[in-house]
C-alpha cells in the first residue's frame, strides 16, 4: 500500500463523519502512514495457519486444579 497524502486522509475522515481539522491532519497522516508501513510488511510473513482469533482456543487454557505443576 502506498503512503497516504493529507488530502486523502481528509477525504477518508469526511467519509467516516469524523472531525479532522488542520491541527490534527498532519499528525493523523503521519500516524496512519506509520501503520501502513509496518502492517503492510506483514504480508511478507508466513502467516500460514495463523487464524485471527482474538483469544486462545479453550484447550490452551490450563486449569491449575486439573493440571497442577
Amino acid at each position, binding site marked *: *500500500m502506498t*503512503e497516504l497524502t493529507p488530502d486523502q*486522509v481528509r477525504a*477518508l*475522515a469526511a467519509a*467516516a*463523519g*469524523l*472531525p*479532522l481539522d488542520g*491541527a*490534527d491532519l498532519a*499528525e*493523523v497522516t*503521519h*500516524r*496512519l*502512514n*506509520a*501503520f*501502513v*508501513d*509496518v*502492517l*503492510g510488511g*506483514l*504480508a511478507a*510473513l508466513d*502467516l500460514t495457519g*495463523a*487464524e*485471527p*482469533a*482474538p*483469544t*486462545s482456543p479453550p484447550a*490452551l*487454557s*490450563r*486449569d*491449575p*486444579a486439573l493440571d497442577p*505443576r
Partner: protein
Amino acid sequence: MTTELAYRSAAELAGLIRARTVSPVEVVQAYLARIDRWSEALGAYVTVCRERALDEARAAEQALGHGALGPLHGVPFAVKDQFDTAGVRTTSGSRLHADRVPAADATVVARLRAAGGILLGKLNLTEFALGGTLSYPFGQPRNPWDQTRETGGSSSGSGIAAAAALAAATLGEDTGGSVRSPASWCGAVGLRPTWGLVPRSGCVPVAWSMDAPGPLTRSVEDAALLLSIIAGPDGRDRWAQAAPGDLRADLERGAGGLAIGVVTRLVDSPDTDAEVRAAVRAAAETLRGLGARVEDVDLPLLPLAGAVFMALADGEAAAWHHRTLATRGAEYDAGTRRRLVTAALLPATLGQQAARARAAIRAQVEDALGRFDVLLAPTGPTAAPTIAGAQAPITSPAAAGRRFFNRRSYTTPASLAGVPALSLPCGFTAGGLPIGLQLIGRRLDEATLLRTARAYERATDWRACRPPLPE
C-alpha cells in the same frame, strides 16, 4: 511516623490493624496527610473521598473484635478513575465524563470493599485509558522520582500513589501495558493478570479482547493479596475465569528449579538502553543464583507487537468511541482524538493482517512458555522519559513509529497472548530513575509468576528505595 506508617505494605497494615497496634482512622489520616502534601503536585488523584474514608475508618475501628474480618479490614486503597464507584464520579480522565456518577461499584471495587478495604479516592489516568494524552483535565501526572518525567500510563495515578505511598495499595487496568508501564517508571509492582481472570464489569473499556484489571502495589505480596480478592467470575463478565484461591500460599517457595527464558529480542534490542539491559541481565543472574535454570530464548515476531497491538486495540477503542468522536470530537484531548481518528481510518485489510500477526505472536509466546515457566524481559526499553519529550509534535511516520510502536513492543506481547505479566523494580539509572523487570507467565499460572517475583524481591533491596519526596 506518618511516612513510616504510609510506606507499610497493605498486608502489613492489615496485620497491624487486626492486632490493634494501629487504628484504621490513624492509617487513613496518614494517607490523607500525604495526599494533601503531594497529590496536586504529582497529579495523582482526581477525586479524594476524604469524609467517606474517615467515616468508614471509624466504622472499621468499631468492628474490631466483633466477628470475622476481611483480609483488607481497615486498609485504605485507591483505584484508577476508570472503575465505576457508586456515588463517586468516575471521569475516565476525560472532560466528557467529568460529571459522570455511577450508581454501582465495579466488581473489583465492590470486592475490595467487601474484603474490608476503605476507598480513599480515584486516581488519575490518560484520557479513557488510552496513552498519549497531551493536556490532562485533572492535572499532569508527574513521576515521584523526578517530576519533569513521565509516570507511564495509562494507570498513571495508580503508579504514583503506589510508589509515593499515597495509598496502601491501588488498582489499575492493563490493556497494552497500562499497569506494568507506570509500575516500571514509578518503581512499583504492577501485575497484569491472565485475560479473563479478573472481571471487567464496571470498568470503562479500552479494548475488550485485552483489558485486564490488576494491582499496583509496593510489594509482590500485596499484588498477590489484591489479585486473590478481585479474581473470579461475577456473572456480569462472561469471560471471567475461575478464582485462583489465595495466591500468597506459594509466594515463599523460591525460584529453585524454575526454568526462566530471557527474551533476547527485547533485552538485546537496539531500542533498549544499556543501563536497562544491564539491570535486566543482572536480575537474570540473581535468579540463576537462586537456583533457577536461566537460558536465552528468541521470539522473532516481538518487535512487531507494538504496531499489531495498536492496530487492534485502537480499532476496538475507536468503535466504542465512534459516535461521541463524531459529535463531540472537540471535547477530547487532542492526543486522544488523533489516536482514535487514526484507528478509525485504518484499512480493514491491515486490521485483519494485524489479527493474523497477533495469532502468530501469541503462538510464539505460548511455545516459549511451553519450554519455560517464566519469560524475563525489560518492562520498557528506557526509564521514564521527560514529559516535554513525550509530548513533542509528531513530524514524520518514522517518528510516529518510534513514539507509539517501539516501546509498546515490550509490554504488548503478553497482552496479545492473554497471558499474565508482572513488572517489579530491578535497579536505577545513573540519574536515579527506576528500571522495571518484566516477568511473563503461563495462562492462569499467576502463582508461579508471583513466586518468581517474590524470590527476586527478597534477594534484592530495591523494594526499600523511596522516591525523594521531602516531608
